[in-house]
């Protein structure tokens, strides 16, 4: 079934540009001109990916991202302007999966969309145990659900994939490059910023004390790992 992408931008010429290119790849497209409209469209039909501009009237991209994250883990890509590093970090902080910097080329746009959609696919499980536990953390692989101390946690698609990397590699140090390549794709190999922000977000959700993490631990200069539990 064709994936449906919601594009949100107040510049009609950006909507046209994104829509024309996405349709050539067989995606279905829905559009909105500001955040408020985007939330309406989003709740009215199934959406597989949101492309979200930052500067918009009424409700801007950050506000929209935050609102969507309150009830959905749909992949979100923020469209931002070059040089505004704070914007990028803020978008990731609010739960966006990726960002695309304006001006961008058509091929760059399509590559990002493909990568983000690929990440959103729950990875196939190979006949292993359905549940995984690590101290007070519990993962249900079949339903892609996560609990901490018996409380369900909502993770974005990217965050979930990142967590799986650790769960499948207990006790093994994973380098930034490995994580970026396996979660985001080879084209992100050097984008450490996106990894830092995502790890920080994941810790906030998983750890009792994000400054003193027990599930995802940093090994300075090497990478990250989920330490084996002492039995």
């Amino acid at each position, binding site marked *: 079934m064709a994936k449906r992408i919601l594009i949100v931008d107040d*510049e009609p*010429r950006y909507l046209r540009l994104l829509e024309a290119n996405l349709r*050539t790849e067989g995606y279905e497209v829905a559009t909105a001109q500001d955040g408020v409209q985007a939330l309406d469209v989003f709740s009215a039909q199934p959406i597989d990916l949101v492309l979200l501009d930052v500067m918009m009237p009424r409700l801007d991209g950050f506000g929209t991202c935050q609102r969507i994250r309150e009830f959905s883990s749909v992949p979100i890509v923020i469209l931002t*302007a070059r040089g505004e590093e704070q914007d990028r970090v803020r978008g990731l902080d609010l739960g966006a999966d990726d960002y695309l910097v304006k*001006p*961008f080329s058509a091929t*760059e746009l399509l590559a990002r969309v493909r990568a983000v959609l690929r990440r959103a696919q729950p990875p196939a499980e190979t006949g292993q145990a359905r549940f995984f536990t690590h101290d007070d953390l519990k993962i249900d692989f079949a339903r892609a659900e996560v609990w901490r101390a018996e409380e369900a946690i909502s993770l974005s698609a990217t965050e979930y994939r990142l967590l799986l990397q650790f769960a499948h590699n207990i006790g093994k140090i994973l380098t930034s490059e490995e994580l970026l390549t396996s979660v985001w794709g080879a084209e992100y190999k050097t984008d450490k910023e996106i990894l830092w922000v995502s790890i920080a977000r994941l810790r906030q959700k998983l750890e009792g004390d994000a400054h003193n993490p027990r599930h995802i631990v940093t090994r300075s200069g090497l990478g990250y790992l989920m330490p084996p539990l002492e039995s």
Partner: protein
Amino acid sequence: MDHLTLTLLHTVLKEVQGKHDWRASLDTLFTSLRGSFVFDNVVIYIEDPQSKSWEIAYARAMGRGKIAEADAVWGERVATDVLSTKKMVLKEPKHLGREKDRMDQPYLLGMPLSIASKVCGALVFVRFGGPKYSDLHVKIASLQAFWAAALLERRELQEARAELDSVQRQMRLQDDFVSTISHELRTPLGFIKGYSTSLLRQDTKWDDATQREFLNIIDEEADRLTRLIEDMLESARLQSKTLQFKFSPVRIDALVRDVATRVNTHHPDLKIEFNLETLPPVLGDGVRLSQVFENLFSNAIKYAPGSKLVISTKSLGKRVQISFEDKGEGIPEDFLPFLFERFYRVPGERTVTGTGLGLYICKQIVMAHHGKIWVDSVLDQGTTFFIELPADPTL
């Protein structure tokens, strides 16, 4: 020290400290202790560190000193002595003359003023014809010198702080300006990049209509970029006042008709109605004023499509007024105060291409003519721009 003196001192110093203006504080400091310490003139000399010459920071004359007010030179020698010795200086006339010559017999008392722990000025009192300064007087003067120095130091700090504030404000404006410019330039660039790379995609084939559509957008956005850069240069020249104006007597009614004719050749559908009074000429730059009118015409065409445009002129004695009235959809009241600001665009007006510089440029040009420009607008009824210019004063 007795209770009464202490209370007096307390009241005086509290009042001195409380005044916002340092001059008023000094006034209070000197006048309120005159009960115990009488003098005719008081002057504060501060040495200008660059030129090494005296500057009079403060001077007050009381009683008979008022006659000698303008002549503060009598204190300069004392001030020089104070500064070189960094000590109190007392100077009394050598020969006592008769009562009527008392203006020639100044009794001078100079006190060093130290600001930021450096002696850089002197507080000088004068009594014409005496009496001599007693020990108590010297002590009061010394206390006043201490407080005067503190007040002057406070003034310096206030001035330095005001300067710093203004520099910071300038820097913030500059930052805003740079970020607005880069955003404005990036928008058309983003379209050019996006649509051209779409056409360059190897993996898809666009139909002819789409190709033409994309090429048109690229072409329009390149034009927008050019216009934006031209407008930016123009507005920067206006801002820095480096744009040269050539002033000569101009007939506004004739000028606006010329511009209207030009506009109509490009936009034959635009209906223009004239309501022109004969006006006295204004002293203006015809080319720049045409630019203002062209801008108002083009705004009407863009933002009030299909509406007729009524152009009226009125003579208001020493001023003339021109108005451009359209029957378009109007501008919400909340946005009106910002229309003439640089890069301001009414939110939601993105469908119409514009740089946010047109009205800013108009305002700068009108202001260079010592005129005003403003706008009235009612939603669903229309918008009127007014320009008022002074009539040529030489005619």
